[in-house]
Structures are given as C-alpha cells and as structure tokens.
C-alpha cells in the first residue's frame, strides 16, 4: 500500500466546478486571488461571464456571493480553509446562513495538508467553526471521485454548504460509479468489535488501520462521514448498537469537529466509549505532512492502539 495512486481533491473541485458551470450558467465562481491554487483557472478562462475575482478580500467575496444568490445565481466562493472559515466567518453567518442563501464556500488547503506553508495556512478549525452556524452544511470528501460527486451534490442542494479539499494528493478510494448523498455516511465494512468513523482525506489511513485490526481478528465497522453536519445520526446510532467502541479520525482539531459531533450523539444515546483522533489542540508548523500527522497521533498505529485500548 506504500505506492498508492492518488490526486489532490482540489483538482477534483476544479474539474467538477468547470463541468457544472458549462451545464448551468447560474453557477458562479468568486475567487480571492488564489484561483491558481484552488484550481479555478480553467473555469475563469472558459466561463468569464460566470467568474468574479475580488482580489484579496474574502469578506467582500462572501457578501458579493450573497447578493448574487438573491438574484438566482449559485455562487461558489473559492479560497483556502483558513480564510473561508475564519476571515469571513461573520459574513457567512450574517449574509449566508441567517438569510439561508444558496452560497457554497469551497475551500482548498483543509487540515494540515498545506504542510510546508506552516501553521498560518493550515485550516484545522474550519469544520468546527462552520458546524456551529445554523443552516450550514459541512462536507469534507475523502478522495478525488467523492469530491467530484459531492461538489455536484452541493450545487444541486439549495442552501449554504461548506466544502473542504486537500492541497496535496490523497489516495484514490472510490470510482466514478460510486454514489454519494449529503448527510449520508458511506459504510465501508460491517463489524462487531470496533467502529472507525473517518471524515475527509484520512479515510486511507483508516482503511489501513482496519486491515491491520482484521489481522488480529478484530471486526471493524468503518464509516466515511463525509458530511459532519447534518451528521448521519442513524449511522452513529447503529455503530453504538453494533460495536463496543467508536474511534473518530480527522485531520482537524479534536475540538468541535467530527469527534465532537459523534460524541454529542454518543453522550446522549450511547453506552460505548470513544477515542477522538485528530489535531491535539495545537498549531501545526512547516514539516512533511506525515510528520505533522504523527505529531498528533493521526496514524495507522494511533488508530490501532486506540482500538486495543477501547477493547481492553
């Protein structure tokens, strides 16, 4: 598994948004001077009438998108996760979520993946912040194919959506034929001992951990929770019933992300114990991506260790 083929999910966004824009003139891209990094250059070149670049002005980008949405457009504000979740957070709250406008916030560089860029560019709090806003849907696809499908699902959904992509290549997991529904987790394996719930690009790690655990005859139920809000409650409840413990894995701070969302359900309805694997309430730094994951225990060994701990 060491030479896995893959591509960055931002590339999938670039392809999907171009296909969407060609088919539907209501699709707009609002860039903030990082279209090259966020893969909207072809969209801008081929569909200039549906493209706006507001420059380095994210707050304004969000408001412009809201205004466009009131006129029937489907704007995708395109930037990095740090800016899309924090620089324009209050604009999203006031002008997108409160009036429930059909605006999508599409963000590359989610999590620790802009590894060399360092802490300033690593969006590790984004999903948690967006999750607290009423009317917002929060989606982190795992790989190239699921990103294409979920970007299209977001365009078809009438309302605010936050989408998170990776800067770097992540393994191919799904293919073009797989179907995805916002708010519906993908069940990778049934299991009776332990549940692993993944969101975003760490799904590859989780699959490797699950394979190792199966070698120990530990039966793993594996879920891809690409939508952390609205979370697939039924899938979490089923995991509580079916297995003895739940491990959540995310390239995001363990505060208020997938782990917290699952813990909210478990604490109200469950009897199982949990382990939350994610960024340990600390900033990243410039370093290889794998090193950054290691420093936070977001590794195959970390997941396997947590499973053994939970199963005592």
């Amino acid at each position, binding site marked *: 598994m060491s030479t896995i083929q893959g591509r960055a999910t931002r590339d999938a966004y670039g392809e999907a948004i171009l296909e969407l824009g060609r088919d539907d003139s209501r699709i707009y891209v609002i860039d903030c001077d990082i279209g090259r990094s966020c893969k909207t250059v072809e969209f801008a070149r081929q569909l200039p009438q549906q493209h706006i670049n507001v420059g380095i002005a994210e707050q304004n980008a969000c408001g412009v998108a809201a205004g*466009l949405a009131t*006129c029937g457009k489907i704007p995708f504000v395109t930037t990095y996760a740090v800016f899309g979740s924090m620089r324009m957070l209050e604009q999203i709250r006031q002008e997108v979520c409160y*009036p429930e406008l059909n605006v999508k916030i599409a963000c590359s560089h989610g999590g620790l993946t802009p590894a060399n860029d360092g802490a300033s560019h690593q969006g590790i709090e984004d999903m948690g912040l967006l999750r607290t806003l009423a009317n917002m849907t929060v989606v982190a696809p795992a790989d190239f194919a699921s990103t294409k499908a979920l970007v299209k699902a977001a365009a078809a959904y009438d309302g605010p959506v936050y989408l998170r992509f990776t800067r770097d290549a992540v393994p191919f997991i799904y293919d073009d034929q797989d179907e995805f529904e916002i708010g519906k987790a993908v069940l990778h394996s049934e299991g009776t001992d332990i549940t692993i719930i993944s969101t975003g690009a760490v799904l590859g790690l989780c699959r490797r951990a699950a394979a190792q655990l199966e070698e120990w005859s530990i039966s793993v139920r594996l879920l891809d929770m690409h939508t952390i809000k609205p979370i697939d409650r039924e899938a979490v409840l089923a995991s509580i019933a079916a297995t003895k413990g739940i491990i959540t894995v995310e390239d995001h701070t363990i505060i208020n992300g997938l782990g917290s969302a699952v813990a909210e359900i478990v604490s109200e309805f469950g009897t199982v114990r949990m382990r939350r694997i994610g960024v340990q309430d600390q900033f990243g730094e410039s370093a290889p991506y794998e090193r950054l994951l290691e420093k936070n225990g977001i590794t195959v060994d970390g997941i396997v260790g947590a499973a053994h701990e939970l199963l005592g």
Partner: protein
Amino acid sequence: MRQELVDDTLIDSLRASTKELRKTLLTMIHAAQSGHPGGSLSASEIVATLYFHELRIKPEDPRWPDRDRFVLSKGHVCPVLYSALALRGYFPYETIYTLRKEGSMLQGHPDMKRCPGIDISTGSLGQGLSTAVGMAIAGKRDGKGYRVFSLVGDGETQEGQIWEALQTASKYKLDNLVVIIDNNNIQNDDTCSVVMPLGDLEAKLNAFGLWTHVIDGHDLVQITSVFDRIRDNDSGLPVAIVAKTVKGKGVSFMEDVTNWHGQAPNDEEFARAMAEIEGESR
C-alpha cells in the same frame, strides 16, 4: 442647483411623504420602546425620495425580478425603511406596532425571510454594500436594467469591507450601483471626528473610482436633481452620493445629540416630537 427644472408638485409631495415617514418611524420606535431614531431621521428625505419617486418597484410583487434593489447597509435604521414599506403597502400599516416584538416581520434589524420588500438581511455593519455589489453584477451579466441603491452610514465606512466592496464596484464598472452615504457625523459612542475621523469622504470615493456627488441630504430639490442626473448613467462608473445630514433631523431635541442614536422617546418626548414634525412647514 437647476432651479428651473424643479417640479414643485413633486417636491411638495415628497415633503409630505417625508413627514409621514418621520411620524411613522417615531411611532414604531415609541411603541417598541427600542430602536434607532437618530439615523432613521437623518435618512428620511433620501428614503422618501427613493420609495415614493425613484425606485422601480411593485409593492404587490416584492420579488419582481426586474425591480430596483435597495440594500440598507446601515441596518439599524430599519424603522425608516419599514415606514416606507408600510406606507407603500408592502404590509398592513398596523404592523408597525410589532417592531422588535416576538414573531414580528419587523425584526430589530432587517430580515429578508420574514419581511416583504427587504432585498437582503443586514445589521452587521460593513457587510450590506458587498451584497449590493453582487446584485449589481448579476444585473449587468443578465442584461437587466435594474439598479441597486445602498444606504451606508458614515461611521460604517470605518469598516474595511466597505472599501473592498467599492473597489469591486469600480473594477466591474457597476454604473447600475448607487452608494449613498448618510453623512450625519455621529455614531454610537460620539461624533465620527472623535471616534475615528472619516477624512475627506468625497476625495476617498473619487480615488476609488466612483462618480461622486455631495449634496444636502435634507434638501429634496438637491436629492431629486442628483437622482435625475445619474438616472441614465452609462459612464461605467458606480455612483456615490455623500448626503450631508443632521442626525435626529426634524426633532429639535434629537438633532445632533449622540444619545438619540439608539434610544426610544418616552411618552412626553414622543408627543413633543410628533407635534414638531406635524407643525413643520418649510
């Protein structure tokens, strides 16, 4: 101004409408015992001219796709906008007595989902103008003839996002956008000069590429004249109008007094204010 072109009937009619706006907005703030009278009163002539003369709107069809848009970026002065909407028949007049009350369409700040005639929800300063820019871009790209007007507070221009929006308006040659600054020189804590001096607004707006006009925002002749002048604007330049106004205009004890930014009149003050507005004859 071009006095020879002045339509006396129009001015008289707008003067009467302005008076009704002021009475209505004070009535609703008094009934709510909460709200922002100062900036509502300073914007009354401008809002009256827009809603009773300039805007192409259909109160019976608030979401008419070809309508002119109005974005109240200084959302806290919604009593003046609600008054205009009530008087134009967007909702029953008695609704004004529900301002800021539970379940009301007249929320403390404008809510487009609840209130007919509100083109965008606003209230957090600095944000509305960006949405107006988005609407104007959509109008241009769709080949629609509508225009977008946005009323911005002078203190609100302290928000950096206002200037982000203006540079975008300029870049995309939004000559279908009209930005009106209610330049009453008072904000929440004190005068703008004390809190954060605005500098030369006209020069700043010109530098951002807007076709800028400075008028007396209480002079209906000047307001209608400037609207006449910009109506068929095809210069590629967005328009800015700096309206020199007096906060609390029309009620002597509220004029130029910071406290009346966000304070409701008691019964005695309300009676005096209504009497003054009723007796006003210019």
